[in-house]
C-alpha cells in the first residue's frame, strides 16, 4: 500500500466504500452474521459477564482487558502501540492488557482506505483518534457504572490504573467488577480526549507485549498452524510468468511415500502430501511440459535498453513548475545522469503460506495477511461462497513488507483453489525458491535526471524522467492510485520534491511488462529517494556547494524537514573531518507524511568492497506513541535499505528468474550491520508513518558517502564497485 494514495483522495472516496471514522458499537461475531445489535442486546446474549463497549475492547470479570487489534503484527509493533492508545484513555492497568487479532469485519476497516488492511505506514496515524476514543468511551461507561452502583455523581469519580475510584471516600472498584453493570449502559456520544500534556503511556517507551512469545517458540505464525485432517501442499508454478501446463506426468511423484494426490490447479500443479518433505520430494519428481507464453523471451538486460530508450523523451507530466527546458538551456552548468534499480523480492523470513478448511457452506482460512478484506472477497469468489461465509484468522506475520498485501490475493486464492481440488483441509507452503521466483516484486526502474545551476551554483532547473511498471494498474486500487495515466506510486518522492527549485519537471513512462509487481517497503520512494537524493548531491557538487548546506538553503519553506536535516547533520558531526579513507553522505526524504534524514559513514577497500560503518538517522513522525518502536523501525528500515543498496537484485533471462535462494539473493548479515543511531524529533503534530520512511534515504546516503570517500558516483543499485 502506498501513501501515494493520497489521503485526500481516500477521504473523498473512503465514505463511499464504508470508511470514515467510526467507533462501531457492535460485536464482530454478530456483525458477521449480519446482525447490527446494540451493545446491551449483544452483551446479554453473547457474553453476559463481559463488557464490550465497542469492537476494540473486551473487559472480563477477572479484570483482563482484551484489545482487539485490527492491524496485522508483522514486526512493526502494532500489537503494543495500538493497545497503548486504548490504555492511555481507559486508564487501564497495563499488566492486564491482552491482544487478539481482529476477525474480518467492516468495524475494523481502515479509517481512510475503507477496507481492513495494514499498509502505507498508516496504522498509528489512522487509529490515533479511533483507538483513543474507544478507550475513553469504555472509561466513561465504567465510571457511569460505578456511579450507578454507588449512587454518586460520575464527576466525583475517576479511573486510575484499572480501577474506578471515588475521590472523596477512596472507595475503589476494579474494571472487571464493574463489567456487568457497564454492559447495561448506553455508550456516551461525546467523548473528550486527554490533553497530550496529561499522557502517561503515550510517548514513553514500553516493552512489546509480543516479545515473550517470540523468545520461547510459542508465537504462532501462519506456517505453524496445524488443523485436524490437514494435508500439506506445494505447488509447481510455471518457470515463466504467465506460463501454462501443457502436459503432466505425475506417476513418479505419486510414487513418493506420503504423497496423496497430484492435482492441476489454475496456478500450476499441486502436490498434496502428509507433510512438507514428501510434498517437496513429490514436486521434485513431477514431469511437466510448460507453454511459456508471451514472456518467454523477457530479460532484464533487454528491458533496461527499452527503458533507457523510452527515457530519452519525456513521458506523461506528473508535475511541472516554471520552464525547465528554458532554464536548463540558460544554466551556467548542466549535468545529466541515468539512475537505475532492479526488481526486488520482499523475502520475508517466513515464506508465504495459507491454511484453508473449505466446506460446502463455509471456508476458514489461517494466514498472515495484510489485506483481510481483499483476501476474503477473493477467497469467497474462488470458493463460490458469500464473503460472510469466509472467515480469516490473521496469525502473526513473519515479515510483510507489502508482499502480504496483494490486491490479487495470489497466495490465498491459490490455497482455496488447492483446497477445492483436494477436498481436504490444506496448508499451501511456498519454499524460499517459490518466494524469490514468485513475482510481485518491487518494480525495476530507470530514471533520467538533468539539472542546471546558475553562476552562483544555485539549482535553477531540475528534470526527472521516470520509467517503470505501474503497481496500481489492474488492481481494485486503480481508481484511487492512477490519475490521468500517472500512477501516484511511480512518482511519489519525486513529483513532491520539497526543495525549492524554480523550474522543475517530473514525467513518467509506464511500460507494460509481464512481471507481476507490488508495493515493497516504501514503494515508489524506494527508487525515487535514491535517484532524487543522489542526483541532488551531484548537482550540489556541480555548483560547488556543500550538499548539506545546499539542502538547508532549498528547504527554507520546509521547516520540519530542515529541522530534521540540521539534527542529523549535527549528530553525525557533519562539519568535523573523518579519518582518511572514510566518507560521509547525507540524504533526506519525506514519505508517508514523515521527515527522515540520514548520514552514512563508509569506507571502500582496495577490492572495491563497501563497508558502512555508521548510520545516523533523525526522524520527525509527529507525536510518538512508543519511542522504542519508532527507533526499532528506523533501525530495521536502515538494514532493509542497506540490503537493497548493497545486495538485492532479481534478474530475468529467457523469461526465467535467475535467483533462487539466499545464496544468490543475499541479505545483509550481522557482520555487515553498521552502528545505528536514531534521533527522534519531539513533536505534538499528529502521528505519521514509521514502518517505511526509514528506507528511502539509505541508498542515497551511502552512494553520496562513497562519492565523498572515493570520488566515484554510484548511479545503479545494487552498488558494485568490486573489480
Amino acid at each position: 500500500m502506498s501513501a501515494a494514495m493520497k489521503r485526500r483522495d481516500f477521504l473523498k472516496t473512503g465514505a463511499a466504500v464504508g470508511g470514515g471514522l467510526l467507533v462501531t458499537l457492535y460485536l464482530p461475531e454478530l456483525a458477521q452474521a449480519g446482525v447490527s445489535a446494540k451493545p446491551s442486546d449483544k452483551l446479554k446474549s453473547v457474553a453476559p459477564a463481559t463488557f464490550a463497549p465497542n469492537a476494540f475492547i473486551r473487559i472480563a470479570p477477572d479484570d483482563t482487558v482484551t484489545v482487539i487489534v485490527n492491524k496485522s503484527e508483522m514486526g512493526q509493533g502494532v500489537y503494543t502501540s495500538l493497545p497503548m492508545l486504548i490504555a492511555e484513555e481507559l486508564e487501564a492497568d497495563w499488566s492486564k492488557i491482552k491482544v487478539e487479532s481482529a476477525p474480518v469485519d467492516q468495524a475494523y476497516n481502515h479509517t481512510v482506505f475503507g477496507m481492513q488492511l495494514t499498509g502505507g505506514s498508516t496504522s498509528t496515524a489512522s487509529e490515533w483518534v479511533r483507538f483513543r476514543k474507544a478507550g475513553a468511551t469504555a472509561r466513561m461507561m465504567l465510571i457511569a457504572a460505578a456511579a450507578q452502583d454507588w449512587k454518586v455523581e460520575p464527576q466525583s469519580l475517576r479511573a486510575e490504573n484499572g480501577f474506578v475510584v471515588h475521590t472523596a471516600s477512596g472507595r475503589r472498584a476494579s474494571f472487571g467488577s464493574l463489567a456487568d453493570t457497564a454492559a447495561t449502559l448506553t455508550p456516551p456520544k461525546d467523548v473528550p480526549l486527554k490533553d497530550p500534556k496529561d499522557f502517561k503511556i503515550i510517548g514513553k517507551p514500553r516493552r512489546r507485549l509480543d516479545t515473550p512469545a517470540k523468545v520461547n517458540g510459542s508465537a504462532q505464525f501462519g506456517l505453524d498452524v496445524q488443523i485436524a485432517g490437514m494435508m500439506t501442499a506445494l505447488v509447481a508454478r510455471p518457470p515463466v510468468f504467465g506460463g501454462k501446463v501443457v502436459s503432466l506426468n505425475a506417476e513418479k511423484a505419486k510414487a513418493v511415500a506420503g504423497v496423496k494426490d497430484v492435482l492441476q490447479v489454475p496456478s500450476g500443479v499441486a502436490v498434496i502430501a502428509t507433510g512438507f518433505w514428501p510434498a517437496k520430494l513429490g514436486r521434485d519428481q513431477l514431469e511437466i511440459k510448460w507453454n511459456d507464453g508471451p514472456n518467454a523471451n523477457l530479460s532484464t538486460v533487454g528491458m533496461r535498453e527499452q527503458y533507457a530508450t523510452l527515457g530519452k523523451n519525456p513521458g506523461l507530466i506528473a508535475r511541472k513548475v516554471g520552464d525547465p527546458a528554458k532554464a536548463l538551456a540558460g544554466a551556467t552548468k548542466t549535468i545529466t545522469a541515468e539512475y537505475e534499480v532492479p526488481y526486488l523480492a520482499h523475502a520475508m523470513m517466513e515464506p508465504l503460506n495459507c491454511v484453508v478448511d473449505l466446506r460446502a457452506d463455509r471456508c476458514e482460512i489461517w494466514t498472515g495477511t495484510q489485506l483481510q478484506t481483499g483476501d476474503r472477497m477473493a477467497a469467497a469468489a474462488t470458493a463460490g461462497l458469500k464473503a460472510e461465509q469466509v472467515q480469516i484468522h490473521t496469525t502473526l506475520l513473519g515479515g510483510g513488507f507489502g508482499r502480504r498485501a496483494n490486491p490479487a490475493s495470489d497466495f490465498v486464492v491459490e490455497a482455496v483453489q488447492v483446497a477445492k481440488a483436494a477436498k481436504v483441509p490444506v496448508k499451501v507452503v511456498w519454499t524460499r525458491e517459490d518466494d524469490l521466483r514468485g513475482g510481485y516484486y518491487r518494480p525495476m526502474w530507470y530514471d533520467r535526471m538533468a539539472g542546471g545551476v546558475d553562476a552562483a551554483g544555485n539549482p535553477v532547473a531540475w528534470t526527472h524522467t521516470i520509467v517503470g511498471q505501474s503497481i496500481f494498474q489492474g488492481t481494485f486500487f486503480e481508481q484511487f492510485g492512477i490519475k490521468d495515466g500517472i500512477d501516484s506510486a511511480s512518482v511519489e518522492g519525486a513529483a513532491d520534491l520539497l526543495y525549492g527549485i524554480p523550474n522543475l519537471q517530473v514525467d513518467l513512462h509506464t511500460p507494460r511488462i509481464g512481471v507481476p509487481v507490488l508495493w515493497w517497503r516504501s514503494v515508489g520512494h524506494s527508487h525515487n529517494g535514491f535517484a532524487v537524493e543522489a542526483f541532488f548531491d551531484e548537482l550540489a557538487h556541480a555548483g560547488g556547494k556543500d550538499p548539506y548546506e545546499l539542502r538547508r538553503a532549498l528547504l527554507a519553506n520546509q521547516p520540519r524537514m530542515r529541522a530534521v536535516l540540521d539534527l542529523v547533520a549535527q549528530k553525525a558531526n557533519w562539519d568535523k573531518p573523518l579519518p582518511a579513507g572514510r566518507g560521509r553522505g547525507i540524504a533526506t526524504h519525506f514519505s508517508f507524511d514523515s521527515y527522515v534524514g540520514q548520514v552514512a559513514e563508509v569506507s571502500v577497500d582496495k577490492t572495491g568492497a563497501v563497508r558502512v560503518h555508521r548510520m545516523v538517522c533523525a526522524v520527525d513522525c509527529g507525536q510518538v506513541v512508543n519511542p522504542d518502536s519508532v527507533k526499532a523501525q528506523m533501525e530495521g528500515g536502515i538494514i532493509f535499505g542497506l540490503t537493497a543498496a548493497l545486495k538485492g537484485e532479481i534478474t530475468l533471462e529467457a523469461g526465467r528468474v535467475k535467483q533462487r535462494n539466499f545464496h544468490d539473493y543475499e541479505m545483509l548479515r550481522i557482520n555487515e550491520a553498521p552502528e545505528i543511531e536514531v534521533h527522534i524529533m519531539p513533536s505534538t503534530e499528529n502521528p505519521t508513518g514509521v514502518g517505511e520512511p526509514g528506507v528511502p534515504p539509505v541508498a542515497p546516503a551511502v552512494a553520496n558517502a562513497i562519492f565523498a570517500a572515493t570520488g566515484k558516483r554510484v548511479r545503479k543499485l545494487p552498488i558494485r564497485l568490486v573489480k
Partner: protein
Amino acid sequence: MITLKVNGKQLNADVDPATPLLWVLRETLGLTGTKYGCGMAQCGACTVHLDGEAIRSCVKRVADATGKEITTIEGLSPDLSHPLQRAWMEIDVPQCGYCQSGQLMSAAVLLAENSKPTDNDIDEAMTGNICRCGTYPRIRQAIHRAAEIKARGGNAK
C-alpha cells in the same frame, strides 16, 4: 520408527529416516518454534542444538540425530529464564520474531563457549542467521547484556 531425545524427552517418530530433522520437529513432534526459512542452511531460522552444537536442522537427516541430545527453542528454558531470553525481552530484540528462535539458539552456543564475547565474536557466531527486519544492532547489544546477566549468576539486576 525413529527415536529422538528432544529437550530431555524420548520421542518416537514414524518418518522416513532421510527427512530433515526440521520437519520432524515441526510436523511430527509439533515443536513449531523451530522455523523454516530457506531449506539449504543459508538463513539459520532452523537452528537447534545437537549435543550442544548449533546445527541447521533443515539439512540434517533425522536419522543422523538419533542417539543425540536435541535442544530446540522450546527447551532453552522452561520459563523464559535463560539469560538470552531475559536480555532479548529487556532490549525488545524481536520485530516480526520469525528468525529469533534460530538467533537465540545460535547465541546460546556462543554464550556457552564464550562467557564474554566481543562484537567480533558475536559477528562471527551469528553471521549464519539472517534477520530481514534488521534487529542485528539489538542482537549484538542483547548478547552482551546476556553475558552480564549470566556472569551475575542469572540475576538480571
